[in-house]
């Protein structure tokens, strides 16, 4: 353990960025450490290392300062020995200004080399040796530079910088480790590709958003109410009515969110309309209202921000349709795949995608029976619209029926849960039906998927809205009922008061027990309960579907396959695929419910947080254990914003009913934080009037004036119009530029093609020389590699070596080849990139001749 620490400290001391080399260094050091069992032997080893470092530095310095000629490897070794003493002694002397500046420059250069070494395609051995040299150089001369003026300060600064770098790196590592479920998602991704992982990333994002909402609602509404509000049983709205008290603790009642749960802080009705509660004078109704609004505000902000970020990323892609086949060829293999099944599916999907593109390519010119296709598409749409209308009507019908059931006594379990059952069944059976119908349309799969998403979304939306309309009917009924109950309550209280007054005029009347006071129906709590029930049943149905449809099926297929007539794994049932679109839409729909219900049932977000947490683990497990990867993986990056768009739409739609109830329905008279007011938003006016100075109320009344609001809206519309126009203009300019680039590309291609065709002689020449150079390059490769590592240490040495190569005997053919082929390049005034001769620009792996065009040209041109 100590040794490891020691290693890491040592590692700190070298300010290297190169990860790979660092790894290797470590490796070597590690093995050093392992081998040396005593400290003493380690010291000795280090002692041995030090002189060699010095030697290298001095050698390096020689190269840099150009004072010594470099002939060959053998000679250098002797040189090194000689120069060690001299250079060391020269170090001791004070350096002149120029030398200092030069040294500084060199140190900077070396540092740059160290930091960019990772990008160099060198062999590890070479990287290592170069890195060590550069490091030793920097280490040594950095100290020397600080000589004279505050060397210690300099050293201290350097140390701090290194420590800072190390700290930042550790912090980054720590940060990546802190991302929740990163490893889980990576595991899923490595088995199922990124499209399935995108669902889990979406789920994680949603979990984060919900955690924030949960914090808002719990921290600002529920906990203050529990801590400082009136306790349970102190007033009618916080007490279970006498008639229900016998069964209030039964599980079946609690399961329906009646009984004690209904009269708890989880629902709207429990809250009192007292302006301030507790010793903090916490304004609970105000807080309730603001939190309800800010839940929407925060969600809108987060969704829009992430959409904008996605859009930024997706526009950075650039031109898409230029390299369809090339990209498929070179980038389609997913290098993360390590699982044979996934690999099989990937092979299949690559093959199909190639086939698709081939078919597209072949069919792009061909004109097929467009009338039939059009007819089929119209037919499919008609069928699907019929399905949607039918399901909408079914829900409406069922909700109506449930209202009549709710009035009847002793109805069965089915009648009470009919709405939820019907909605869940529709959600289960309609998507596959749509998919079957969509097969008629014969769309491109990506477009088909979007249609499918849109249709399922419309189904869910239709369900949601018919559900809401039915709820509205319910609410209106309740409101009518309320007026009656209000009178009864008033009368009861009055009569109670009167009777007690009548009995004994002196004694104060005993207060009526809160459980006996007649209650209004409290439509807000009813809505909240309805939504919570729906959410819970949705959770259950989802989990049961996963358990039965995926896990049990997988078990059946796996184990019954030994004794069955046909191959179950390849044949009919097979294993389930992970249904990305369905899952994502389920998540979005569920979130819409949460947004809508959180105003009436503050505890709903807590349920949702639990749901997301469990479904993260449960679905990860289900995917890994019982699903098979898709045959056709659709791009996750593109459709992510599509999901976000759907989410935004749902958010907006769920905002509407809440805003409607806040603005235009009277709150219940005997429950909730806004009871006694005409409208819910009056709580703001009340706060402004009572808690703020007068001028604020004045300003507020001015701002709320329609004469000011209408111009403001107008201004906003104009601004939107203007910005839209600007964006469109940019887009047009973009398209224009793209077209221009395309044209330029074509032109360039044509030019080159023409050149190739009009200069057959030159082409012949090139052909003539290609094989010879190729052979030569193979021959040269071996010996080049030997010279390689010392050769590349400094550019000066490189060019010198190049010159030597050009002068020497064997590379002569190469030089001549270049000399012959250069003129054609010059004729067409093309930039002299020797694409034929140096296929790796910037990659200093020599193939026969030097890469830098300078020496070859320099020698070649005077001859002509």
């Amino acid at each position: 353990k100590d040794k490891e620490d020691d290693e890491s400290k040592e590692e700190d001391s070298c300010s290297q960025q190169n990860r790979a080399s660092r790894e290797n260094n470590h490796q070597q050091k590690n093995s050093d450490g392992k081998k040396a069992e005593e400290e003493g032997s380690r010291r000795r080893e280090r002692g041995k290392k030090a002189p060699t470092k010095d030697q290298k530095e001095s050698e390096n310095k020689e190269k840099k300062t150009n004072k010594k000629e470099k002939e060959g490897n053998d000679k250098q070794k002797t040189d090194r020995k000689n120069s060690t003493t001299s250079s060391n002694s020269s170090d001791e002397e004070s350096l002149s200004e120029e030398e200092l500046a030069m040294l500084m420059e060199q140190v900077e250069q070396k540092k740059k080399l160290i930091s960019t070494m990772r990008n160099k395609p060198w062999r590890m051995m070479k990287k290592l040796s170069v890195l060590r040299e550069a490091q030793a150089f920097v280490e040594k001369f950095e100290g020397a530079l600080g000589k004279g003026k505050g060397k210690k300060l300099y050293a201290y600064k350097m140390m701090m910088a290194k420590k800072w770098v190390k700290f930042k790196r550790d912090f980054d590592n720590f940060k990546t480790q802190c991302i929740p479920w990163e490893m889980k998602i990576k595991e899923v991704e490595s088995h199922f590709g990124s499209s399935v992982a995108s669902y889990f990333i979406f789920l994680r994002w949603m979990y984060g958003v919900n955690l924030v909402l949960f914090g808002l609602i719990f921290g600002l509404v529920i906990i203050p109410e529990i801590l400082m509000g009136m306790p349970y049983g102190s007033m009618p709205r916080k007490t279970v009515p006498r008639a229900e008290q016998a069964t209030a603790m039964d599980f079946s009642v609690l399961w329906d969110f009646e009984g004690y749960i209904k009269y708890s802080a989880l629902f709207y009705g429990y809250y009192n309309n007292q302006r301030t509660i507790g010793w903090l004078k916490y304004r609970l109704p105000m807080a309730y209202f603001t939190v309800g609004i800010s839940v929407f505000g925060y969600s809108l902000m987060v969704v829009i921000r992430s959409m904008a970020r996605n859009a930024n990323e997706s526009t950075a892609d650039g031109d898409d349709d230029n390299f369809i086949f090339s990209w498929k060829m070179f980038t389609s293999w997913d290098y993360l795949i390590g699982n044979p099944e996934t690999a099989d599916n990937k092979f299949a999907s690559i093959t199909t995608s190639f086939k698709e593109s081939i078919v597209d390519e072949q069919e792009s010119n061909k004109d097929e029976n467009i009338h039939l296709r059009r007819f089929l598409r119209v037919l499919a749409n008609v069928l699907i619209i019929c399905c949607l209308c039918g399901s909408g009507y079914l829900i409406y019908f069922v909700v109506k029926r449930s209202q009549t059931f709710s009035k009847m006594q002793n109805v069965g379990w089915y009648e009470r849960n009919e709405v939820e059952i019907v909605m869940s069944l529709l959600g289960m059976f309609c998507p596959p039906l749509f998919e079957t119908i969509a097969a008629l349309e014969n769309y491109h799969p990506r477009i088909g998927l979007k249609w499918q998403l849109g249709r399922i979304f419309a189904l869910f939306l239709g369900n949601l809205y018919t559900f809401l309309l039915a709820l509205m009917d319910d609410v209106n009924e309740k409101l009518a009922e309320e007026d009656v109950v209000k009178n009864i309550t008033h009368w009861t209280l009055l009569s109670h008061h009167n009777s007690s007054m009548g009995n004994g005029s002196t004694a104060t009347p005993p207060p009526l027990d809160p459980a006996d006071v007649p209650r209004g129906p409290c439509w807000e709590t009813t809505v909240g309960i309805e939504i919570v029930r729906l959410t819970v049943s949705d959770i259950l149905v989802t989990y049961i579907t996963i358990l039965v449809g995926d896990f049990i099926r997988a078990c059946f297929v796996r184990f019954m396959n030994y004794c069955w007539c046909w191959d179950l794994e390849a044949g009919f049932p097979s294993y389930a695929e992970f249904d990305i679109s369905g899952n994502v839409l389920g998540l979005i729909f569920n979130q819409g419910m949460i947004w809508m219900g959180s105003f009436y049932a503050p505890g709903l977000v807590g349920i949702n947080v639990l749901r997301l947490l469990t479904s993260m683990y449960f679905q990860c497990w289900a995917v890994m254990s019982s699903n098979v990867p898709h045959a056709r993986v659709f791009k996750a990056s593109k459709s992510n914003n599509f999901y976000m768009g759907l989410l935004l739409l749902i958010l907006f739609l769920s905002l509407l009913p809440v805003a409607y109830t806040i603005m235009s329905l009277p709150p219940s008279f005997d429950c909730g934080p806004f009871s006694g007011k005409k409208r819910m938003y009056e709580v703001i006016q009340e706060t402004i009037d009572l808690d703020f100075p007068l001028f604020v109320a004045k300003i507020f009344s001015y701002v709320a004036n329609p004469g000011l609001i209408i111009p403001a809206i107008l201004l906003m519309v104009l601004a939107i119009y203007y910005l839209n126009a600007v964006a469109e203009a940019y887009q047009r300019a973009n398209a224009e530029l793209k077209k221009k680039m395309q044209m330029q590309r074509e032109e360039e291609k044509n030019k080159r093609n023409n050149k190739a065709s009009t200069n057959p002689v030159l082409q012949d020449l090139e052909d003539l020389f290609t094989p010879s150079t190729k052979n030569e390059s193979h021959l040269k490769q071996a010996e080049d590699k030997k010279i390689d590592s010392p050769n590349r240490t400094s550019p000066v040495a490189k060019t010198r070596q190049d010159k030597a190569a050009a002068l020497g005997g064997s590379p002569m053919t190469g030089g001549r080849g270049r000399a012959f082929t250069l003129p054609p390049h010059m004729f067409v005034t093309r930039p002299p990139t020797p694409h034929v001769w140096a296929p790796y620009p910037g990659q200093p792996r020599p193939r026969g001749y030097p890469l830098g065009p300078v020496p070859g040209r320099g020698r070649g041109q005077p001859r002509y």
Partner: protein
Amino acid sequence: CFFFLLVYRLHGRYHEMAPNVVPMDYTKDPDVKLPMQLIINMPELKENPFRERIVESFSEDGEGSLSFNDFVDMFSVLSEMAPRELKAIYAFKIYDFNTDNFICKSDLEKTLNKLTREELTAEEITLVCEKVIEEADMDGDGKLGFADFENMISKAPDFLRYCFKKKI
């Protein structure tokens, strides 16, 4: 430290492939190489259609046997942190089957056959190869040089995402 563990793990991987050949300590810089057959059976490479090419292009002798340095090299290039240009260079090497520094039609055909497990017909293969060359060949010489390849790869949105990422 993170990187220290990484290399330690890498060495562990290297060691466990041939425990009797690879020594545990590298102080003396032993000249040990593992043959290609052992390397390509690693779980990371086992399913990769280009595994032989990957190993070959990272081996110093071009034959496919890897020393530990080459092995670390391979993982450092295939890791997520390696820069795009470096990946492009090695990708080019990998796809260049006959090591003539060009991706020509025969290389493309081999690549395609490996990617699709030879499920395409001959006409389809020629069509795809022609399309690839038509798309990416900027200098009109009928094959892809490194400049062409890099130009094409650098525009690919998925290259960093999918290509050449690996866990240890």
